[in-house]
């Protein structure tokens, strides 16, 4: 059963990701990205990471994508020429991506070290965040603070 879901979510994720990249209309790209995020959330459920799935949907689909939609609606982006025009850009991009996929694929299967999917529920994550990872957790507050100051600075200085 979960095999079927795996394939459904995988195909959905790849197709919608391709549609993000290849769509000419930015609004369709945003909607495809939302579909992609939801299928990734489906994968999280399959792996038993329920809390992460919830956070993922709230943060990505709920906050980030709404922000994107808002910005795209705010500016009228119809007149932007959508793709790089030079053919060799396409060639270089395709070659780079193909090289990466092949390079990884050759490495992948000889040395892959699978781990047991353990408990990824709320309690162990919270425990880790406030014990082992307490310092990075606190330091991330600095990151947020600088983002807030930065966005205010960008917004007001005109």
């Amino acid at each position: 059963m979960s095999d079927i879901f795996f394939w459904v979510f995988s195909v959905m994720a790849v197709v919608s990701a391709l549609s993000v990249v290849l769509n000419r209309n930015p609004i369709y790209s945003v909607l495809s990205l939302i579909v992609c995020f939801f299928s990734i959330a489906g994968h999280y459920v399959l792996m038993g990471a329920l809390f992460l799935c919830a956070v993922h949907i709230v943060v990505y689909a709920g906050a980030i994508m709404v922000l994107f939609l808002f910005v795209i609606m705010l500016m009228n982006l119809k007149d932007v020429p959508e793709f790089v025009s030079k053919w060799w850009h396409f060639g270089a991009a395709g070659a780079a991506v193909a090289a990466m996929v092949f390079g990884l694929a050759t490495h992948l299967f000889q040395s892959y070290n699978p781990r047991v999917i353990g408990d990824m529920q709320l309690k162990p994550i919270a425990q880790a965040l406030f014990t082992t990872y307490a310092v990075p957790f606190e330091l991330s507050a600095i990151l947020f603070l600088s983002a807030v100051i930065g966005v205010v600075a960008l917004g007001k200085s005109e």
Partner: protein
Amino acid sequence: MTAILVLSGVGILSMIADALQLGRWMRWITGIGLVAAFAATFCPFVIPTTMLVFDETSLTWTRMLIGFTAVLYSLDRHSDGHHHHDALLIFSLIGAVLMTAFSHILMLFLAIEILSIPLYVLAGSGDSHHSLEASMKYFILGSFATAILLFGIALGYAGVPAGALLVVIGLCFKVGAVPFHLWVPDVYEGSPVRFTAFMSIVVKIAAIAGLARFLSWGFGYRPLLIGLAVISMIIGALLALHQTSIKRWMAYSGISHAGFMLVLVALGEVVFPSLLFYALAYGMGSLVVFGLLGAQDQFDDRIDSLTGLFFRHPALSVGLILGLLSLAGIPPLPGFFAKFLVLAHTWHLGLGGVVGVALLASLVSTFVYLKFVSVLFIRK
């Protein structure tokens, strides 16, 4: 650790001071805070954590970074008006300090972000269109590099050995080593001069320190790094030849110096004191150049604008010339000993080809610096 606590406090204080419009106290708060943070690096108090390690190595880097920022800040005369920049600068410095002290890969990632996010904003804080463009370029390429670094980390967790390579590439982007250097001249040119100086001194040294610490975990990419270093040295020096903008010129000369530092990083922990000395010499040289140029009433980015400076401001010119000659590696200035150490170490390890290219690169860059110095003596 205490230094980070002090710096965070100073950052928050200057943010509040900005909100309460206490503009004239700002410079005092930030300045005294930076000195206090420097003093705090000598305090033995540590918070028990497995994420950060404050050994002699990272403390030395930390002192260097805070010291450079403090001197840079005190030399800066153009900070009127936009006080939120002080808070962002301090937060960015915290990221730089963290990059020298991480002992967990998560901390490296977080440090890079804390270093970069304020810088994206600071790069765009100038008045011109160029500044905003520079900021946009820096943001897109920086986020792209971060994504590649994260992919490397994820592959590392999955047991794929190529993961560490992608992390090294992500860090080389921050250093500005040659195939990943395309953003450096544009971003340096567009940013306001005080933040260009911060990027070329503090950010570059922090990235080098982070790379050295990451490689000290035992990832063997020595041949690759030496290759990148060799290309950076020579290409940085060659591209500096025909620049007309001071900031672009400093960007390319910084790329060349990054090449020399990468050689030392690649040689491992044995040559660590030399790396430290090179970073110190490079930082001091750049500090003198940027500090003196930025201290002029009106900063003009064209190299031509310095024509005949020696006859107008002899004292300033002498300082500038000393800084430039030190960067060029003319004895008896510190830059000479730094470059000499690189050559000695590589020769000692039998890497004759690298020594040859390094010699060629220093020859070219000496010519580049002398060309700059000669501009100061041309009568109008």
